[in-house]
């Protein structure tokens, strides 16, 4: 035994630390989540640094409080750098040692992230323990180029009839959801996530919900809603609440995009919701002003457009050679008093491939989702629409446009001729058909069947105000007795002659029974 002890003692005595040779700096000034650092020679933009509180402490004290705070280099200056503090700013003090980590800001990514709630640094904030089996991926990455991409040609069903019929979204598309506060922007995004449950598991996209500057109670409610619906099985939530530092709110969308890219690179589909980019822009403005960058329009920094364009450009549908994966982005922008011509809304409108515009007036009239069909567009989604949906949705926009023109005459209903009255009723019915309860997205085949019924006059037997209830009954009827028609639509994704006949028979049966 003695010889063993002696040998171990010799080993310990002979231990020589390998030593480290690194570039360091010293905090000159700190405040408002920003640190001015002297030194740090050779530091690069977006590099991670470590505020090391242990440098001037004894080993005992250092071990007692070895908590490190990370920082992100954002300004390179002649005699030092400015970095944002990613964590508790009060832990950083003047004269503190700062170490370069020689890597760009990275977060852990992997399969084990699914079902978890994370902060923008990829650290779990739920109570499910540490992440396992992850690799690090840089948070900022150049988007894929033209050669690596393929056209958007696979639909991403939202389960919201109005969206899937008139403003279809394809996998790899960037579709903006824009509107005033409380008009149902988040509801559309969450319904889209919930609806992916009806997709076959092999083609179901991994959904990433990024909450930026939101109330923690709202995020908790959303997580609970997703969990209750079983949607957390394929969803990841990244949260940077209103109480978190501006740097976290600025980084959260990039963290979401990085996680989405991990799945896209693996040849799978991913959907990322940025809720919302207006708050990210405000956080970035705050940081930029504190970093003493010159302010521009509305005090936003000059690179605010680049902030959003480089983020949204990361959404892509990859070519077969690159694995064929996709990353669909649903950014959300909050407008003030319906002003879509403000700085940030116009920027993001011009970056994205279309927008779903929600109007407070329509919302207050009880229309849900309160989509303004007139100025909502999808620039690439129509080529990803299924044949079945294309066939039934063609007439909707026309019917609704005619209805909007005649809507003003509705108050003179008694003096109108029969044709005009019929057109108005048809428009009212269509509006009712497109109205949908929040949190209950519909499978694609039911959407098609209901819209088919609406455009082919199967609801004409009902008064316009009763259409919503009739539609609900039709859904139940189809799920019960129209399974053959639904299966044909689901499998063929088209309404061929056979399908049409079976569907018409089912709808006739329904109207006869309802009468």
């Amino acid at each position, binding site marked *: 035994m003695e010889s063993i002890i002696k040998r171990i003692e010799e080993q310990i005595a002979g231990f020589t*630390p*390998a030593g*480290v*040779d690194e570039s360091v700096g010293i905090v000159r000034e700190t405040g408002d989540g920003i640190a001015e650092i002297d030194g740090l020679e050779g530091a690069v933009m977006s590099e991670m640094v470590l505020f090391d509180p242990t440098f001037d*402490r004894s*080993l005992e004290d250092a071990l007692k409080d070895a908590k490190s705070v990370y920082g992100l280099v954002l300004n390179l200056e002649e005699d030092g750098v400015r970095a944002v503090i990613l964590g508790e700013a009060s832990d950083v003090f003047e004269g503190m040692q700062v170490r370069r980590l020689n890597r760009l800001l990275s977060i852990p990514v992997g399969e084990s992230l699914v079902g978890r709630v994370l902060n923008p640094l990829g650290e779990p904030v739920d109570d499910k323990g540490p992440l396992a089996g992850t690799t690090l991926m840089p948070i900022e990455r150049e988007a894929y180029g033209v050669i690596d991409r393929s056209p958007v040609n696979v639909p991403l069903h939202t389960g919201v009839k109005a969206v899937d019929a008139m403003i279809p979204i394809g996998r790899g598309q960037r579709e903006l959801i824009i509107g005033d506060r409380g008009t149902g922007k988040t509801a559309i995004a969450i319904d889209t996530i919930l609806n992916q449950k009806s997709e076959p598991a092999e083609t179901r996209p991994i959904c990433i919900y990024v909450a930026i500057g939101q109330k923690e109670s709202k995020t908790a409610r959303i997580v609970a809603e997703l969990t209750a619906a079983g949607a957390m099985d394929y969803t990841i939530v990244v949260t940077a609440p209103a109480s978190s530092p501006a740097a976290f709110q600025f980084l959260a969308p990039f963290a979401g995009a990085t996680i989405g890219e991990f799945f896209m690179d693996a040849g799978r589909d991913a959907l990322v919701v940025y809720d919302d980019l207006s708050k990210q822009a405000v956080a970035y403005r705050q940081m930029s002003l504190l970093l003493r960058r010159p302010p521009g329009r509305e005090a936003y920094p000059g690179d605010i457009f680049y902030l959003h364009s480089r983020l949204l450009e990361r959404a892509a549908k990859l070519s077969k050679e690159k694995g064929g994966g996709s990353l669909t982005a649903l950014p959300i922008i909050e407008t003030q008093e319906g002003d879509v011509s403000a700085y940030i809304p116009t920027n993001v409108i011009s970056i994205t491939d279309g927008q779903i515009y929600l109007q407070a007036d329509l919302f207050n009239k009880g229309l849900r989702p309160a989509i303004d069909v007139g100025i909502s567009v999808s620039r690439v989604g129509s080529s990803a629409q299924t044949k079945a949906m294309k066939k039934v949705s063609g007439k909707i926009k026309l019917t609704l446009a005619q209805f909007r023109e005649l809507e003003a005459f509705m108050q003179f209903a008694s003096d109108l001729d029969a044709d005009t009255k019929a057109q108005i009723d048809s428009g009212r019915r269509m509006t009712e058909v497109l109205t949908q309860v929040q949190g209950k997205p519909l499978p694609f085949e039911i959407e098609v069947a209901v819209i088919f019924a609406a455009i082919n006059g199967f609801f004409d037997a009902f008064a316009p105000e009763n259409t919503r209830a009739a539609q609900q009954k039709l859904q139940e009827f189809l799920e019960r007795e129209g399974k053959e028609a639904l299966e044909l639509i689901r499998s063929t994704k088209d309404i061929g002659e056979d399908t049409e006949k079976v569907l018409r028979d089912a709808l006739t049966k329904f109207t006869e029974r309802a009468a």
Partner: protein
Amino acid sequence: MEKTYAKALYELASKEGADSKKLVDTLIAHLRETGRMKLLPRILLELKRIDARAGTLMESLEVASESEISEATKEAKELGINANATVNKDLVSGWRARTGSRIIDRSGKRALLDLYKRITAHA
């Protein structure tokens, strides 16, 4: 502007055999001539800042015990650091040296801390 003046003044003052009185007199005469006398307090502030920065980033060598001084000085010299060693018992063993924004840390404290972090990171 004050940064440029302060930097130039610091560089000139750091040269061997620099006459500080002459430097200050020349600077003041120049500021008067160009009507920039109001810059003087700001130049002073900037100069203090540069001096403090140079102090914190100055060459230094710390060793854990007196018995390690000669070995540490020799090793540091090989790496281009010619500073007088001071004893810092907090280092546990070994030595650490600084030159500008570069640190070479061969102390037992750093090794133990890194080991501790590695172990606790996976705990």
